[in-house]
């Protein structure tokens, strides 16, 4: 199978959706970030000039615009840039888009996609490095998608755009250059289906988005020590695939979660709670979390490195969990 970049796979899905449904429009066109891969959007600009609106710097109004347009039957894809900027649009995100269907007693559909780049990208400091997915998970009514691979981003983006729910589609600038096998034909990956990126018997490492690659790197190091780690990627936080997570922990008996959201009330905290409630009997060791600590994000490289979940930290957490096993 051919290998293409994550960015190219994303563009293939966008083109496919724009071609298939005339009600799909793009609000914002820097969906690949500001890195060199951004030029991959140029053909879409050329091919669909009247389907692409370059907006003013008004994230709040754009989130609301997307919700209103979706209520009117359009299918907008709204780019919010970096995840930190999504906070500017927080009120319409959680007060309008997330609740409109529920409040209308199921009579409204809100088929809008909000796209953003989250996470530690290198030098982003405290206003360009946020990972809003944990806070969004705490606001009922939004589907949350975090693709980690070129194959996943192509299939999940199609599902997101075709979804009748407001969907937050979260990429990571560091994923854009990653290349892997991607089918040429169109396909959809359903939400709520975790993917085991690497099978293993000794420990379950849960990760989404860019840190899936961190987890895989750690798993390779651990394999040389005779430790077989399973890397489980939920791919969507909402809906969340509880059965696949619980089944993995049942087989391995150990759980380590890697995530870029902060420690407190973060994605790792919720996943820990799921296993503590429904899979406690499977656990042979305490759960370990490798996350961003509860500090704002610093700029300077050694400072940023100090708060970044790395493969070394993940491997160390796995060794600790194995040592403390019953």
């Amino acid at each position, binding site marked *: 199978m051919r290998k293409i970049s994550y960015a190219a796979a994303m563009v293939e899905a966008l083109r496919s959706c724009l071609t298939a449904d005339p009600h799909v429009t793009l609000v914002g066109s820097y969906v690949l970030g500001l890195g060199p891969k951004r030029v991959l959007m140029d053909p879409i600009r050329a091919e669909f000039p009247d389907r692409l609106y370059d907006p003013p710097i*008004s994230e709040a109004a754009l989130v609301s615009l997307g919700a*209103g347009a979706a209520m009117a039957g359009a299918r907008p894809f709204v780019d919010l840039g970096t995840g930190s900027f999504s906070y500017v649009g927080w009120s319409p995100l959680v*007060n309008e888009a997330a609740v409109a269907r*529920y409040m209308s007693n*199921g009579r409204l559909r809100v088929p809008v996609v909000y796209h953003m780049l989250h996470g530690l990208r290198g030098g982003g400091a405290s206003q360009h490095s946020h990972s809003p997915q944990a806070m969004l998970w705490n606001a009922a*009514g939004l589907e949350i998608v975090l693709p980690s691979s070129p194959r996943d981003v192509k299939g999940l983006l199609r599902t997101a755009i075709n979804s009748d729910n407001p969907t937050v589609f979260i990429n990571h600038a560091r994923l854009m250059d990653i290349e892997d096998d991607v089918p040429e034909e169109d396909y959809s990956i359903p939400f709520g289906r975790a993917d085991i990126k690497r099978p293993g018997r000794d420990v379950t490492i849960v990760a989404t988005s860019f840190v899936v690659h961190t987890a895989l790197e750690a798993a390779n190091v651990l394999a040389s020590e005779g430790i077989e780690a399973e890397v489980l990627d939920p791919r969507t936080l909402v809906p969340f695939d509880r059965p696949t997570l619980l089944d993995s922990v049942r087989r391995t008996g150990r759980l380590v979660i890697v995530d870029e959201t902060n420690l407190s009330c973060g994605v790792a905290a919720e996943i820990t709670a799921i296993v503590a409630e429904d899979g406690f009997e499977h656990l042979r060791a305490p759960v370990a979390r490798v996350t961003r600590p509860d500090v704002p994000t610093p700029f300077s490289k050694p400072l940023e490195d100090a708060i970044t979940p790395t493969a070394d930290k993940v491997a160390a957490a796995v060794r600790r969990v194995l040592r403390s096993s019953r």
Partner: protein
Amino acid sequence: MATAALDQKTSLSIFERMLMMRHFEEAAIRLYNEKQFVSHYHIYIGQEATGAGVLEALGEKDLICTTHRNHGHIIGRGCDPGRAFAEILGRATGFNGGRGGTLHICDPEKGFLSTSAIVGGCAPLATGAAYGTKTKHEPHVAVGFFGDGSLEQGIVLEAFNIAALWRLPVVYVCENNSAGAIGAQQGGYSAATTAVESFISLPAAYGIDAIKVDGADAAAVHAAARDAVARCRAGQGPVFIEAVTVRWPGSSPLWPVLATTFDLSQAFDPARIDGPHADWLRDHDPLSRLARDIVGRKFATPAQLEARDQAARERIEAAIAFAIESPMPTPETAFADVFA
């Protein structure tokens, strides 16, 4: 601009909408006073000519988003008053199945997309609805109703900019009801919270056509709305209408009170008006004003209007009975319809 006088049919249609709004709202206050529902709520009395004048200018497929003072818009659109009362009373038969209450009534089948109780929230939503119709190449217009307080929210100005840039078919209706509102120092709403002297200068700065009208003058509002809708349908971009009304005394306190009750006969015999709110009834009640205009133009006799008034009262009584007799939602429905 010159105000075109209303013709007979339009006058009577607007009057009908306004009657229903007025009786609905008087009943809403009574229901609250009877403890039939809890919640803060907002009453549209005094602004009926604005809502009815605008809604009269819309087609069936046009889209509406509104703000917390929403009852008049829902009823003026012709949405079922029984289901509206049922929603206010938290009943299963309410427009939102009891999930929304007074502050969130919507009726998508009638193009009534949303009541957003986040001040300023409906302006960008209506802008989005207009983006939807434009990008789908539909001829429909979106209307956003909001109060003057919304102009204190930055998101509304962002919406103006986007609508102007993309020439979106949206009519912004700013209902300036601060005249007569008491200030925060007297225990009510603050009415002195903007440095802007001319509200229409805000959309005008973005190149949006902006007009200020007397919001108690149904003919003036309707003429402005008809022009605005025509401009939007012609692809000429957004329009802003500021409709100024003098606040109904019952809406001045933090919680509504039934300060006046509608008596159509007084419209034709102002000498009979007395009491603490006689000024408002005589000079600022849009319903009495339109009734006098209709009779003055010989579009209808007082007796014919009395008959319409009686019919509206009976429809509202039937709507209340429907709501009160409706069941409460079952607890399981609290978990339904989060996602499609």
